[in-house]
């Protein structure tokens, strides 16, 4: 297993996807050897100097704590790291959509974490496992860190990261649902988490079956009418981002607080939770007798 590169930069920067290739070596994907960091530092584009958000140290220390705390069960690290990464690396969605930021985090800052988290076990079928390249540089819902950040962004309920923990505790939910448009509607995301929390929906097959049913029904139903959401004030998020300057390191035990935005309207979440529960009753789920 590799360690961090010899040279880890002090600040986050942007690493273009076209420039990624020389560092995404076969040895790295197999978890055998990582680049030294010096050459990579030459091809990045810097981010503004005066912004405290780009300090690497808090992020580096988070991933190290995650690797230590979850050394016995690395999958569980997702639910722990997602809210804490989100509260540490405070971004607007515009910034978070920039793949170059995630490329840099992956290759310059914490390639060792990605190998630790995503290198498959050695099996008879796969004697030489390798990490999928898209965990380093790839779609937002696959790349190791952007996937966690977006899961936290889409499942948080205003400042409350509780739903993020629940959502990220279910690999199928973040694997399948994160890719679907339905999750962009906040009350829908919260209703899904509630069904998970109450134990009405548990297995991966059930999550997949339910999300397909929601999507299918959504082709003729406009969920925004059944469950209206409130517009959010951009100033609240900006304030939270500005506070990064003076923010303490995130709590390792309790959950941090997210931006102080209004939660999704309770009536909307409750209405959709009830509606999805009904849909789920009749949804075809692999491995379940039809009709529940």
């Amino acid at each position, binding site marked *: 297993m590799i360690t961090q590169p010899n040279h880890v930069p002090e600040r986050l920067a942007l690493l*273009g*996807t*076209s*420039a990624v290739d*020389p560092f995404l070596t076969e040895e790295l994907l197999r978890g055998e050897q990582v680049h030294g960091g010096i050459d990579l530092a*030459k*091809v990045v*584009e810097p981010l503004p100097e005066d912004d405290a958000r780009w300090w690497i140290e808090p992020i580096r220390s988070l991933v190290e704590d995650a690797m230590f705390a979850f050394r016995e069960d690395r999958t569980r690290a997702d639910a722990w790291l997602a809210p804490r990464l989100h509260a540490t690396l405070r971004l*607007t*969605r*515009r910034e*978070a*959509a*920039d*793949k170059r930021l995630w490329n840099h985090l992956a290759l310059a800052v914490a390639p060792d974490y990605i190998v630790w988290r995503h290198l498959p076990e050695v099996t008879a079928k796969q004697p030489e496992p390798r990490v999928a390249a898209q965990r380093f540089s*790839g*779609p937002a819902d*696959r790349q190791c860190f952007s996937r966690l950040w*977006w899961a936290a*962004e*889409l499942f948080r309920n205003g400042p409350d990261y509780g739903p993020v923990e629940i959502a990220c505790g279910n690999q199928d939910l973040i694997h*399948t649902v994160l*890719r679907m*448009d339905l*999750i*962009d*509607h906040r009350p829908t995301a919260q209703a899904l988490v509630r069904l998970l929390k109450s134990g009405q929906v548990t297995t991966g097959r059930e999550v*997949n079956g339910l999300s397909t049913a929601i999507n299918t029904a959504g*082709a*003729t*139903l*406009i*969920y*925004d*009418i*059944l469950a*209206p*959401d409130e*517009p959010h004030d*951009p100033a609240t*998020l*900006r304030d939270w981002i500005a506070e990064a300057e003076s923010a303490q390191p995130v709590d390792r035990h309790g959950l941090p607080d997210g931006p102080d935005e209004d939660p999704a309207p309770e009536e909307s979440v409750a209405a959709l939770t009830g509606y999805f529960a009904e849909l789920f009753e009749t949804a075809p789920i692999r491995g379940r007798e039809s009709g529940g």
Partner: protein
Amino acid sequence: MKIYPYKRLSRSIALRVTSVSLRLSDGTRDRLETSAYSTQQQAVALGIAGRTDWVSATIGLSVTLPPGVNAPDAPWSELCVLAVLTDGETNVRTSVNLTLDTEGGHDWSGALEVLRDDHRGRASLAVYAVGTVDGVRGRSITETDRSWIIDTVSDEPVRDLQLEVRQASFKRSSREWLHAYADAPWIVDTSARVPTVLVNTDIEGVMGLLDSNSSGVESKVRDLLVAQMATDAWTAVFHGAIGDLEVESGGGPVFPTDWQGEVLREMLPDVIPGVHVEEALRQVHRRRTGESGWVELQTRIHYAAVRRADAGKALAYAIRSLEQKNRESET
């Protein structure tokens, strides 16, 4: 053609943008010229004023519902009209209710707020007429048939995604990865925010040619060159997008949610004509990952790129211009 389990209107909603203004960080407003939006292109360009200090944009909307929506025997009630803005890159979905202009009329209007922090490039705007049908709330009765494009960066309201052309000295650029391409006149970067052609300023005269504004042969050669670059770019974009396709648990490929998906939707009808874009995507994916048919498809992909780049037109004009020049020198 989708089949609906309830009665709908067969005609679609007409949507117009009536005004666009930016709210700046100091609280003032900047009302944009009407050239910021185009009804024909169905596009809005929020970058037209060259500002980067805006916080949000307010887009005035006016829609006309098709006839029949107010019919006394219509099977729907509780009619409302909703404008929905979505952005696959930033997972944003915002909606706003429009209000009826005059009782009994077909026209509704309202204003949509677009937050700059919420978008990196292009979002799309659709309008739905929604009602309660057969006791079911939230049924969509009809929609806009084509979404408007709200581009938060572009300075020109055009629907088709435009290439960005940038220049750099490949030999001396601080972006060291460019050094490897020092002898290429241009390269294509499909991983940037929008597909980008980087032109190598080390090739003498190339920038002069690209910037030329003359009306003579030179400008026709420039257009030909640009068409050539664009053909390269669209071919690369297509291959890049197809190579990165996500596959659903059922095995079918899904359209990327960012501009790559947009480009695929535009090019696929030329690559696999005569079928729905979803089916075309499945066929292309099958051919690439399957055992045969990928090589045969290259001609079609190139053809789609040539069309997307308007290369035929550029060549025709260049030839005509050369002929004219020859005639002039003969006489």
